């Protein structure tokens, strides 16, 4: 499969006066042509910072992309000089934002703001750009496009403004569009309109979309794959059906459980009050993440090793990756089974070695922490 966008080990930190916020701390994902990836997580999980990092729009200082690469059709955007990066923004990779009320400049007409992006990346005349803008407005389903290009943002409703934003983002037919909570500020009936429009445009132009949202329900019917983020890292990455039917990470399970399901009613079958399945506790402080798994303090399955070291992302099924020790076991067991009797012995030896290494490291760390405590 050919990927339009490949993100490897992306890390964006914010260097504040006396602490560092590890907003995005090693995120990998890929985006195939015409594919839609949902990036889901709660506030502060780093999903918006991830999208801003892809666009290289992190305010610097205090933010900085400290590591990783963002490969867009073979160009690493992270290493690109700012001038070259400008040629990509709005052209090859574009973005729409959460607040349609504030994301358009109030003092310029809609037509001007759409033709601005066209004139930046295409070699066209002012007048031509304006008629192109009207065509784009028609494409995003606005009536009277020739009239609308002369209107100012405050004359449009929230839904229409978001359509105008989509027109700006799609103007240069980018290969990747990032949608950062594009429907969160809208009413449900308008949200349905916008989602339908985005789906139609994606199919027509074969654009790859990274759809960022906190609302699992929104992406269920809209995306091909879902990446769940928690506290700056991806915890699960799987095809959309897998995520909803067979969630593996305890956080994903909790998140799904806490989404209210339509039509179940107030009472259970036995007449007791129906309660939502909530995740106890709150998000960890981005200044001091737990040393081990970042979800451990809220996790119902937390084991000793979860507190000690952060688990890696492992692929448990084709295309289904998860960052959890529960499934590390599973993966190892499967490998052992595949190896047969000889393999089992090798695995046992490896296990022995690993335990030894771990206990040694733990000892050293204890020593170190003691030393730190003294000094």
């Amino acid at each position, binding site marked *: 499969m050919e990927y339009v966008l490949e993100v490897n080990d992306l890390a964006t930190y914010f260097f504040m006066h006396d602490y560092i916020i590890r907003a995005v701390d090693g995120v990998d994902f890929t985006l195939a042509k015409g594919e839609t990836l949902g990036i889901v997580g709660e506030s502060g999980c780093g999903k918006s910072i991830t999208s801003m990092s892809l*666009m290289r*729009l992190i305010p610097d200082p205090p933010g900085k992309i400290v590591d990783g690469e963002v490969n867009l059709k073979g160009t690493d955007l992270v290493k690109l000089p700012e001038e070259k990066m*400008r*040629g*990509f*923004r*709005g*052209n090859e990779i*574009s*973005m729409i*934002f959460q*607040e349609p009320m*504030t*994301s*358009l*400049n*109030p*003092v*310029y*007409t809609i037509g001007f703001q759409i033709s*601005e*992006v066209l004139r*930046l*990346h295409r070699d066209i005349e002012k007048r031509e750009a304006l008629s192109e803008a009207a065509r784009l407005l028609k494409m995003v389903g606005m009536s009277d496009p*020739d*009239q609308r290009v*002369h209107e*100012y943002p*405050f*004359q449009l409703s929230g839904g229409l403004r978001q359509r105008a*934003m989509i027109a*700006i983002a799609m103007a240069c037919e980018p290969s990747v569009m990032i949608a950062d909570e594009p429907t969160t500020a809208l009413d449900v009936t308008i949200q349905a309109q916008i989602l339908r429009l985005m789906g139609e445009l994606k199919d027509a132009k074969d654009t790859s979309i990274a759809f960022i949202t906190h609302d699992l329900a929104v992406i269920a019917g809209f995306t091909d794959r879902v990446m769940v983020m928690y506290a700056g890292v991806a915890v699960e990455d799987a095809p959309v059906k897998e995520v909803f039917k067979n969630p593996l990470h305890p956080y994903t399970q909790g998140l799904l459980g806490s989404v209210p399901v339509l039509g179940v009613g107030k009472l259970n079958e036995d007449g007791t009050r129906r309660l939502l399945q909530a995740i106890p506790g709150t998000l960890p402080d981005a200044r001091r993440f737990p040393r081990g798994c970042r979800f451990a303090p809220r996790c119902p399955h937390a084991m000793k090793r979860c507190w000690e070291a952060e688990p890696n992302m492992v692929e448990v099924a084709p295309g289904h990756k998860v960052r959890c020790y529960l499934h590390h076991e599973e993966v190892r067991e499967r490998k052992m089974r595949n190896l047969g009797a000889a393999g089992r012995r090798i695995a046992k030896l490896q296990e022995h070695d690993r335990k030894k290494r771990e206990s040694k490291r733990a000892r050293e760390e204890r020593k170190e922490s003691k030393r730190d405590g003294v000094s």
Partner: protein
Amino acid sequence: MNPLKQFNWRFTVPVDLVLIVVLVSRGSGVFFSIAVVEALMWMVRLLWISPAMLMYIIRRLVQAIPVLLAVLAIGFALIQLAPGDMFTQMELSDNIRPEQLDRFREQFRLDQPWYMQFYQYVINAVQGEFGFSRTYRAPVFAVVSQRAANTILLSLTSLAFAWVLSIPAGVFAATNQYNIKDQFVSIFAFVGLAIPNFFLAFLLLYLVSSTGNWLPLGGMTSSGFRHMTATQQFFDIARHMVIPVVVIGTSIMATLTRVMRGEMLKIMNEQYVVTARAKGQTENKVVYMHALRNAINPMITILGFQLGNVMSGAALVEIVVAWPGLGSVLLEALLSQDLYLVVGSLIYGVGLLVIGNLLADIALALVDPRVRVG
């Protein structure tokens, strides 16, 4: 779209020019013609762009009437409270008989009750007449109007000076937030605010005079002004304006720069600035086209407020550098107890303020589409 609905500059500007030329050719003064034609044409334009706004302006003008009436009342009360009247001094003179004085008083309606006098006073004031200046032996209008024009010239130039400098300074400080450049601008602005105007004026006068008098030290024109060509006259006045404009300008630059910086910082965090960057726009255009255009609105509002500051600041500086404006005429009038001149120049000052504020409001309405179209 209805073409008539859309406002078109190309259509109206020639009309302006033609009208001005016609008026001038019929013997009206150039400035007078421009003022009359522009006032008229702007009414027409506003009626075209937004009738609601024309109504608003008319309403604002009507609202200004009570303010001006109150000022007139205060001025009138001052005159009435002062002992005697215009002709009291003449009573001492041997050349004038008492019957003659009575006739004068009748002529000036000083024999009537105070409310009739006030009525007459207001009627006169509307025609720009505020009585007779004793010291200048001329109507107050004649004395004050030239001085008022000088004050307007000085105030507006100072405002423009401060505005033109403080906008880039504010933008510069905002785009370099918290680093040494930002601090430098802030310190500079505060020094400008902290130095008293008259002291800075003396300081500049001293500097200029000790480095070889490369600028005139006072007044508005040089001695041979009447014999100069128009261009020479222009530069002569400009040279005389340098010191007062710098003095008045720096005193309000501090406020304007701080406002501009704060506003820019706020706007640079707006979502639409991020949108502009996400389009691939250059940082310069993001700052000057997207952010600055929005940050300018409060600067226009503040312009109206600052007009009062500028004019009171100008009054002091005028006295120091002998600029023949309202400030210096007010001082002269006070010293020589020329009551009508004092009241006349005060009313002139207030009138200018009211109109200035109104103009600032209109300017704001014109630049902000939310106000203009909505």
